């Protein structure tokens, strides 16, 4: 496949892997004292396991799997609110596919659909807009979920609805932003990290500048990376080289897609439609200041929170994590998924207990699906 195979060339991969080994040795990292790099994005976590990169990199290099899986970090209370919304008789609830299985305290959207709620999987908020046009007698709610990658499209769909005067369309906004949780992780005294691989698709929108604080204030290197295996390996090498050379910079490996200043049209749309919430809850990490977005007053008519009176600020909504769930420890790199007592026992992709088992981009689900756990079991 053109423009994909080039980024999966085995020869180039071998050369990069050899260089990664060499620089890891130069740093003096060993299995007992590894150099620890966090890949922030769930897409990167998924790629690492899908291509078996974790087994090809040297033992002195440890990947810590970051919080960049929007489905995983969605708090249970918000899933409950989705279900409440979807079960209203007048509502057609539209959502991206992988939010369907996320467990709420009582049920997931998949279960609510089976019980009769009108829930439809869509590939874009524009599909939801089209539903609203076709069903003027129904209230079409779109589940706005995801990082800066998906925020512009919901912002644009809200503006489009405003232009058309579509009064039966609204967005249940759960968009979150990448920089605040990184700051929270860096402020966590338990967190020991040597560098970051940054999410390329997010930077396509926000550029690379929002990460400058990582290098400037915390002295850690970060490389914004693409999603093909060679992108990832090259980015890891770039981070390792900075660590070896004692440098802390923001570097851009994904230059073919990511401009330094991001995408001004997308940023303007986000700015026009959304504003930061004072704080937002992240499953497994807790409340993080200014990490979530809500819809501005001027687009209130398209804000499902306002329309259906179930706002985030409406009351204490925090729901305790299930007992024994160690997602927080995994997400801060303190333990590996396999060290969680519930891993593969009380928590599997069929019946996820914790956030990281929910989506294929979650670290635990990736471990389970691509082999960590099953291979271990078989070896026993």
């Amino acid at each position, binding site marked *: 496949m*053109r423009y994909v195979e080039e980024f999966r060339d085995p020869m180039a991969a071998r050369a990069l892997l050899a260089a990664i080994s060499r620089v890891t040795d130069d740093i003096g990292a060993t299995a007992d004292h590894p150099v620890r790099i966090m890949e922030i994005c769930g897409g990167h976590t998924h790629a690492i396991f899908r291509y078996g990169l974790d087994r*090809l990199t040297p033992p002195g290099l440890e990947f810590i799997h970051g919080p960049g899986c929007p489905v995983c970090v969605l708090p249970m209370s918000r899933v409950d609110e989705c279900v409440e919304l979807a079960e209203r008789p007048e509502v057609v609830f539209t959502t991206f596919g992988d939010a369907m299985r996320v467990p709420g305290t009582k049920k997931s959207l998949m279960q609510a659909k089976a019980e009769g709620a009108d829930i439809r999987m869509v*590939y*874009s908020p524009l599909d939801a807009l089209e539903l609203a046009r076709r069903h003027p007698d129904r209230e079409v709610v779109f589940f706005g979920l995801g990082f800066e990658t998906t925020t512009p499209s919901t912002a644009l769909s809200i503006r489009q609805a405003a232009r058309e005067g579509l009064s039966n369309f609204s967005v249940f906004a759960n968009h979150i932003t990448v920089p605040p949780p990184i700051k929270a992780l860096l402020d966590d005294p338990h967190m020991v990290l040597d560098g970051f691989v940054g999410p390329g698709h997010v930077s396509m929108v926000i550029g690379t500048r929002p990460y400058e604080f990582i290098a400037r204030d915390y002295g850690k290197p970060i490389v914004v990376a693409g999603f093909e295996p060679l992108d990832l390996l090259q980015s890891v090498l770039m981070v390792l080289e900075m660590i070896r050379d004692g440098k802390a910079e923001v570097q851009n490996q994904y230059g073919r897609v990511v401009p330094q200043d991001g995408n001004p049209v997308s940023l303007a749309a986000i700015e026009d439609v959304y504003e930061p919430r004072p704080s937002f809850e992240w499953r497994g990490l807790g409340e993080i200041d200014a990490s979530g977005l809500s819809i501005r007053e001027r687009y209130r008519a398209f804000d499902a929170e306002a329309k259906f009176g179930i706002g985030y600020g409406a009351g204490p909504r925090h729901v305790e994590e299930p007992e024994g769930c160690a997602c927080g420890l995994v997400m801060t790199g303190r333990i590996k998924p396999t060290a969680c007592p519930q891993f593969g026992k009380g928590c599997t992709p*069929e019946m996820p207990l914790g956030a990281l088992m929910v989506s294929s981009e979650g670290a635990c689900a990736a471990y*389970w699906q691509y082999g960590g756990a099953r*291979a271990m079991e078989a070896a026993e």
Partner: protein
Amino acid sequence: MNMALRADAKDGVVTLAHGGGGKAMRDLIEDVFTCVFQPASMEDQARLTDTALAEPGARLAFTTDSFVVDPVEFPGGDIGKIAVCGTVNDLAVGGARPLWLSAAFIIEEGCEIALLRRVVASMAREADKAGVRIVTGDTKVVGRGGADKLFVTTSGIGVIPAGRALGAERVRPGDVAIVNGVLGDHGAAILSARGDMALASSIESDCAGLGHLMEAVLAAAPGARAARDATRGGLASALNEIAEASGCGIELDEAALPLRAEVKGTCEILGLDPLYLANEGRLVLFVPEAEAGAALAAMTRLPEGEGATVVGRAVAANPGLVSMRTIFGGSRIVDMLVGEQLPRIC
């Protein structure tokens, strides 16, 4: 044949009256179904005879499957074609020669009769190709919302000749795994045909009957151990079943997987794994290494095996597990699918 009905039914739709058991129903059955399938009699049961049944040591094979595909017609096929091919293939991969099918239709009120005719014609064509006869059937009409346009259930009977024994439990370490062509075309064609994502593609379903292919393979490689059609859940699920039943590990080679560029692209965009995409005309065959060349040659001589290729082998390591050597030489487990494959957000 009732010519009056044929004329006004041409652009008509099925109504609840067609399910009422009276004249309207009889007319529909005669005009749309039996005039095409031409069963030997209009009795409620078919009476079957075949010389193959009388062979000493021959065994009967019997299978059933229901088809609810949405959309009913898609590039490369329709619900009728899959309903015949699916059941023929279930029989064939077990080593049986498919002989007879039943066909039951659950029709939603409002379904166009022209659509029914197209589906029935496509069933007759596939049955003909596969050398099976549709000998009995049933129709029911349900109210709007009681079904989605049209559901079809086919059951099939075949005969396994004496001395033939295929089974997943017979797979041994060292056996070679062969697929008969590119993977995932059906799943990708259905995704595109649903039209709920803005992806235009030219991918057609791989839907095909595999009875003749299996006969050719078994003649060329009589020691073949097992075959599975890689339908729902894709190649990954078929291999997991074989690994579990045989107690062998199975190692796939990612570089050897036959995938069309369009299918790869669709999967990349939607975050799907082609190993789990459905196929309706693909099987995976396990043969002892010594017969792999003969099996491959027999397959590639037929159009439905044109793209046949070796994708991996059975091994003693990791019993019960399917693993894949990635293009970089890393490895990963290829597990059973959990529920449905859901497209990722970003």
